[in-house]
């Protein structure tokens, strides 16, 4: 059972233990791709910082403030929000992933998110201030760390949730908590957060729920473009077939198959997953399988990377022999196990490592 216990770690709601820990292998300034944030285009003459624009919206804002653009932006934002309010005055009715019709008479102002990826989506849509609490695993952006924590999806603290008077609770499909919240008259909205497609869909849905539909396409396009660029660059950089890879999510060993969220990103990076799709998203492999498929690159937690050669027969694997191993810090690992708006960061970390170690 203990193997399965830690194996649950890649499910984002259990992101508390078993995550890949250790040295911070990837640094942001190493990122080869300068993904363009929509805001970048607003101020083309602002000198680009070495970290690229994707992560520096906040810094960009400071720069903009320094050159006195803020009043103008504030004015246009005010105009924008006025028009949006006029557009979204009516009730929003949407069907959630539990097939329930959820109706919101007006855009919610007190939101609780029960999943890190949903928290991040809400914040990236510019509604971070509407969050009144999050689940215990949400830790990005920095400001949500200070919010009250309402437990996890499976052991949510109903009483705390009720006492915070939310007008919307965002969660994934977890029947126990949704049933109880419904009994108590609290509006909840269930969303699948498994795949890359879910990220884009959830951005669209959450933006509509929050009454900010105009924010969705910018964020979606930004993410899609970043993902495409990272993938294209990774493939362009390479001559010949992509490396074969094995992504170990847990040491049982559980692998990330091509159908999993991580597997999708790996495929977009032009790699060949040694796990075949029919084995499922996170199959538990026979260690022999990995040895026989002899991957070129192995993604593994840093603690396991140190002792991978001691596994019987594994010292003969090419990736182990030639030390073509990739490990991530907990911070980067989080972006890989949460199908949320920071997906490009995790993907870029994988691309960087592949560029360094792949044959």
């Amino acid at each position, binding site marked *: *059972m203990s193997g*399965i*216990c830690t*194996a*649950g770690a*890649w*499910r984002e*709601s*259990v992101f508390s233990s078993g995550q890949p820990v250790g040295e911070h292998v990837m640094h942001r300034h190493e990122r080869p791709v300068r993904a363009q944030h929509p805001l970048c285009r607003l101020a083309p003459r602002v000198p680009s910082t070495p970290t690229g624009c994707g992560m520096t919206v906040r810094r960009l804002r400071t720069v903009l403030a320094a050159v006195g653009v803020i009043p103008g932006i504030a004015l246009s934002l005010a105009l924008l929000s006025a028009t949006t309010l006029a557009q979204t005055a009516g009730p929003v009715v949407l069907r959630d992933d539990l097939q329930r019709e959820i109706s919101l008479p007006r855009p919610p102002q007190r939101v609780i998110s029960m999943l890190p990826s949903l928290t991040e989506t809400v914040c990236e849509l510019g509604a971070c201030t509407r969050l009144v609490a999050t689940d*215990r695993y949400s830790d990005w952006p920095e400001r949500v760390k200070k919010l*009250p*924590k309402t*437990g*996890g*999806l*499976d*052991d*949510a*603290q*109903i*009483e*705390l949730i*009720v*006492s*915070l*008077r939310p007008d919307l609770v965002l969660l994934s*499909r*977890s*029947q*126990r*908590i949704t*049933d*109880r919240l419904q*009994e*108590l008259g609290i509006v909840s909205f269930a969303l699948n957060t498994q795949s890359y497609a879910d990220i884009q869909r959830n951005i669209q849905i959450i933006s509509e729920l929050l009454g900010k539909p105009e924010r969705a396409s910018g964020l979606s396009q930004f993410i899609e473009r970043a993902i495409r660029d990272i993938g294209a660059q990774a493939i362009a950089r390479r001559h010949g077939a992509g490396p074969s890879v094995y992504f170990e999510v847990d040491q049982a060993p*559980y692998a990330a198959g091509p159908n999993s969220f991580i597997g999708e990103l790996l495929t977009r990076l032009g790699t060949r997953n040694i796990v075949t799709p029919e084995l*499922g998203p*996170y199959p*538990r492999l026979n260690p022999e399988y990995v040895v026989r498929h002899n991957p070129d690159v192995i993604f593994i937690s840093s603690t396991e990377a140190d002792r991978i050669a001691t596994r019987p027969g594994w010292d003969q694997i090419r990736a182990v022999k030639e030390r073509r191993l990739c490990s991530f810090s907990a911070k980067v690992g989080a972006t890989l196990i949460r199908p949320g708006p920071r997906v490009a960061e995790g993907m870029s970390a994988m691309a960087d490592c592949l560029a360094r170690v792949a044959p």
Partner: protein
Amino acid sequence: MTALPVPAIGAGALDADGGESARFLGWVAVCLAITLVITCGSLVVGTSSIRTSLHWLLSPDAQSSVILWQIRFPRTVGAWFAGALLGMAGAVAQGVFRNPLAEPYLLGTASGAALGVTISLMAADASMSGLAWAGQIGVTGAACVGACVAIALTITLSRGMLQTAGLLLAGIVVAFLLSAVTSLLLLTQPETWRAMQAFLLGSTGFLSWSSVILLGVVFLLCIVPATLLSRGLDALTLGEDTAQSLGLSLPALRLALLGVLSLATAAVVGQVGIVGFVGLVAPHLVRQTLTVNHRQLLIAAPLCGGALLQAADLVSRWIVRPTELPVGAVTACVGGSYLIVLLWRRSRDG
């Protein structure tokens, strides 16, 4: 079934003794008083702070009253019923199996419930069309069905209820078998593991008034036949042959008592998950302090179990505020240490 007069055993012989029955009544009164205190206490302890002043009692604001009457009150009452059912089930199990270590989950109910929960979670998670029914009845329903299936399997495997040893063995086999199936299922979808584990550790946090009503009805349905059959349990303590020679129809008695045991356990597992040790410890706690016959035990053990689980619930939400401990872990800690003390005392007393 229990028409024949059965020689009183143990404290039953002391029934006439006024001192003993006074002690029993005193014990019951203490249990009820503790329950009352904990109930009041649990209304003011929670993750959120609400003002509990006299002024508030006179004119409560809407939100605090929802927390009080829709969350804390059903939770503490539900915890009492669940604990009472476990205490009663424990007393019945120890009587039927004539084994002081017997407990409510003996017949494989825990493993059955775990399997039910796993199937339900997987059906809700994945789009397994064949398992849609499991998603429909929800986690609590699935746990209940799983527990019942496990009991049915155990009884079938033991070929009726002729042998206590056979029944115990069948229970163990079924428990292992169903755990194995659960593990196999979890291999295909390991991400459901945590949700299942959260359920199995036991939680009173999701109890609503509808669960309280369900637990209350089941409690009434169980306690009445159990106390009516208590004379049979007294007879059983003399040995199966003696009981039979006294004119008891053993299979019928066993079937009825196992029915009570199964109903009680399945209902509790469905509503609060697997809460260990209450069922084991409550009857022992009664027997340690009182000498009782089974009728008295079946009254005292539920009272004791109810107070125990209520107290554990209070501790679980108070000790690490504002977060919560799983109530099953608290009862296991408390119950485990109690058992150690019990064993130590026994070995010391020789």
